[in-house]
């Protein structure tokens, strides 16, 4: 065995990767070669010091949460394709499917779970290629796009003049149901406005909650549930909801 060979194989010896035959050969060379013996001793020492040091890193909790959120959640959610196929099956079937799907009054203890699903949907949307199904800053393009995909198309209101740019719409899933998401931008921040139908027509005033570092402001109005989710500050999100509600009032009454 040459020194060049031994200089490589001594590492395999240290790592317990050599079979008995090769191990004996390396040991025989080292017994007769001071240079290789010195190298083996030095490398053994370095390995010992390395083993005593924590050199690994721990993944940040936020990373784990984001990965979890990007996977299909504990409540199975239909893939977008399968639901769209369902919608394409014919109006009778899809109307039947939709009727049981949308008109549900949320129980109080469901609120927290729904909120976490809404935040998950927001996280999913931030991944490349998931944000927008219909890209348009024109409310007259976005709104008709929802027709036929949802029982009740969500109100699509352009708030560009008020500082919140309409960028498009998306079909999403929350609580195993198809739900409309209208997407706005504030500077570089995304705001997802999720809208679903509800049997309750009572007005529920807006309320902000924080989950996984996102602000979520939800309210109920005219038989619809709204969730606005974003990483913008609570004040700005409140401003967004105020402006949305004001514009909606004008739209309805005007």
């Amino acid at each position: 065995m040459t020194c060049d060979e031994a200089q490589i194989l001594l590492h395999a010896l240290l790592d317990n990767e050599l079979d008995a035959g090769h191990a004996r050969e390396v040991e025989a060379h080292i017994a007769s070669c001071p240079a290789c013996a010195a190298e083996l001793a030095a490398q053994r020492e370095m390995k010992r010091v390395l083993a005593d040091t924590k050199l690994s890193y721990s993944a940040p909790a936020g990373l784990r949460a984001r990965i979890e959120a990007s996977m299909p959640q504990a409540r199975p959610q239909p893939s977008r394709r399968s639901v769209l196929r369902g919608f394409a099956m014919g109006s009778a079937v899809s109307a039947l499917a939709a009727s049981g799907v949308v008109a549900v009054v949320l129980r109080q203890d469901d609120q927290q779970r729904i909120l976490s699903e809404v935040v998950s949907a927001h996280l999913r949307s931030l991944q490349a290629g998931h944000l927008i199904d219909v890209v348009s800053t024109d409310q007259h393009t976005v709104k008709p796009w929802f027709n036929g995909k949802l029982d009740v198309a969500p109100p699509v209101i352009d708030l560009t003049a008020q500082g919140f740019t309409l960028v498009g719409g998306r079909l999403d899933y929350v609580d195993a149901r198809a739900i409309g998401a209208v997407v706005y931008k504030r500077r570089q921040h995304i705001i997802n406005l999720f809208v679903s139908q509800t049997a309750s027509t009572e007005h529920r005033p807006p309320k902000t909650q924080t989950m996984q570092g996102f602000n979520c402001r939800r309210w109920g109005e005219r038989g619809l549930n709204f969730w606005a989710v974003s990483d913008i500050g609570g004040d700005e999100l409140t401003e967004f909801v105020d402006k949305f509600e004001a514009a909606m009032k004008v739209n309805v009454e005007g």
Partner: protein
Amino acid sequence: MPVSDDFQKAQRFREAALPYLDDVYTLARYLLRDASDAEDAVQECYLRALKHFDSYRGPAMKPWLFAILRNVCNAEYARRAHSHAAIEDTPGAADQTPMWQENEASPETEVLRSRDAGAIRKMIDALAEPFKETFVLREINNLSYREIAEAVGAPVGTVMSRLARARAMLRAAWTAEEEHSK
């Protein structure tokens, strides 16, 4: 029904792959040398892994995840092309550090002072690719030579010579720094 299939697949994936999150993140930190780039790469790695989970045929999940992470990191290297080389053999870097010197100091003088983790991480960070990658996979991620070969797509012999060079380079850097600090 495809709905529950998707969910069950994700559940199996979660159980098989998430326990290695720290390992994957550790490799990403050493390869990219940036905490937030590493987070992005790891998230992308898990997305791709879930997507290809159907074609995964075991047995070792770790090397498989590492192989995917390498691809993600190579794309990141390409993006940073001006400052970093991809994980490839860089003969120049390999030749810079001799494997060993004829006039080795005696073993007694070779005892290395223990250093804090931060100092050692910095020295590992400074190793050239593909030696750093091989070193981290072996010494920190605890892969066997065969698993490293699988993860990096190179023969075991190549893994062995890269590892020998990586350790020689690290020790050279270590002793040089001790000389310096004396």
